[in-house]
C-alpha cells in the first residue's frame, strides 16, 4: 500500500469520528438550551430540519427560525423552570460518500423529558430515529439536513402501548407540513440510508 491510500483511509476514520462527535455535541447543546450554538453547527447551505410533527424548515434561514425563534424563543434564557430536555444520542452508523465530501448517519434517541402540555408540565418518554446528512466544507463537517422521526411520545404514567402520542404539534411557521409523521403503532419504518453490510442490497 502507498502513502496516498493510507492517508485516504486515515481521513475516512477521522471523518467518521468528527461526524459522530458533531451529532453528540448537537445533543449536548440542545439539552442545555444553547440554540445559537446548535444553529452554528449547520452549513450555510443547509437543506432542512424536520423534527417530530413540527413540519419542515428549509435552508439556514428556516433552521434559525426553528431552533432560535420557535424553540429558543429568541433568547438564551432558561425555558419555564420545569421543562427539561434530554435527548440521548445512541448507536450512530455513519456512511461517508466515496468523494469524502458528504455523509449520512442513522441514530436512535431515548428521551426522558419534562415537556409542556395543555395540562401543565408532564414527564414523558420519547423515542425516535434520526436519518441525517452532513457536508464537509473547508475541512470541517457541518449538518446539512436533520430528520428526526418520532416513534412514540408517551407519558411516564401510561407507556407507549396505552398512550403512544401526546398530541400533534405542527409549528405554524414551518415551510411545509411533516413529510413522514407515522408514529407507533403505525408500523412505519424509517428507511435506512445504508446498504446491507454483507449483501450490499438496500
Amino acid at each position: 500500500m502507498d502513502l496516498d491510500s493510507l492517508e485516504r483511509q486515515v481521513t475516512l476514520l477521522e471523518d467518521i469520528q468528527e461526524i459522530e462527535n458533531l451529532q453528540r455535541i448537537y445533543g449536548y447543546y440542545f439539552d442545555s438550551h444553547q440554540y445559537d450554538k446548535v444553529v452554528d453547527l449547520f452549513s450555510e447551505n443547509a437543506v432542512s430540519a424536520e423534527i417530530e410533527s413540527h413540519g419542515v424548515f428549509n435552508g439556514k434561514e428556516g433552521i434559525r427560525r426553528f431552533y432560535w425563534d420557535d424553540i429558543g424563543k429568541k433568547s438564551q434564557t432558561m425555558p419555564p423552570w420545569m421543562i427539561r430536555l434530554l435527548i440521548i444520542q445512541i448507536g450512530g452508523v455513519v456512511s461517508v460518500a466515496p468523494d469524502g465530501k458528504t455523509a449520512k448517519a442513522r441514530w436512535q434517541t431515548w428521551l426522558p423529558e419534562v415537556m409542556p402540555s395543555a395540562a401543565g408540565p408532564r414527564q414523558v418518554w420519547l423515542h425516535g430515529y434520526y436519518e441525517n446528512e452532513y457536508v464537509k466544507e473547508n475541512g470541517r463537517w457541518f449538518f446539512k439536513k436533520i430528520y428526526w422521526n418520532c416513534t412514540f411520545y408517551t407519558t411516564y404514567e401510561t407507556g407507549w402501548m396505552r398512550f403512544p402520542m401526546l398530541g400533534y404539534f405542527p409549528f405554524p411557521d414551518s415551510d411545509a407540513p411533516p413529510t413522514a409523521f407515522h408514529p407507533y403503532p403505525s408500523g412505519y419504518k424509517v428507511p435506512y440510508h445504508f446498504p446491507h453490510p454483507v449483501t450490499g442490497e438496500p
Partner: protein
Amino acid sequence: MTLELLEAEVTRLEDMQEIEDLEKKYGYYFDTRRVKDVLDLFSENTESVEIESHGQYLGKDGVRRMYMVGVGGEAETALKDIVARREKSSGAGFNVITQLQGVVTIGSNGKTAKGRWQAWLAESFPFAGTFGQYWLHGYYENEFAKENGTWLFTKLFWNTTFFTRYETGWLVQPIVGFLPMPNPDNPPTAFHPYPSGYHFPYSFPHPVTGEVEVPVFRYVHPMAT
C-alpha cells in the same frame, strides 16, 4: 515507524469501526423485523446464537430456525410466508433495541473479534394472549470473523438481566415469564436473570492491569435475606 506497521494499525481501527457499525445495523434491522437482513449478517460458519430463554441454536441453520421460525413451530417450508408475514406485521407489536456501550477486542491475527454491548429495550408484544408493554435489559457477548474482507457474526449471545412490565418494574417483577422457542439444539446455557447476582463474563481484558476475567458465578439465592 514503517508504512506496514501504520497500515496494520489503520486496519485495526477500521475493523473496530466496522464491527461497531455491524452491531448497530443488527439492532436497526431487528427493530424493523427485516429478518432476512438479520440472517445475512451471520457467517455460514456461525457457531451459535442464544437469546433470552429461547434456548441455544447451533450453526447458520440454527440462526435461521431461531429468528425465522419462532413461536408457533411452523415448518421450514413455510419460511417465505413467515418472513413475508413478519415483515408486514402491524405496528401493535414492536420493539426498540438500543445497542449501547460497545467494547470491541480484535484478535491478534486480525481475523476474529469479540464484543460486549448492553441492550435496553422497550417492547410491546402479546404474551399469554394479551398485549403488554415491557422494559428489558441484557448484555451481549458476541463473536465475529472477517471473511473475504467483510466482518460477520459468528456467535451471538444475549444474556437477560430483566424482562419486566412497564407498569411494575424490575424489582417488583424481574421476569414476566419464560420465552422458550421450539426445537433449540440445547436448553439455555446461562439464563440467570436478576436477582440471581450472575455476572456475565467479559470478553475484554482489564485496560490497565491486563487481567483476563476468570468467570465466577456469584449466585445469590432469591430467598436469601
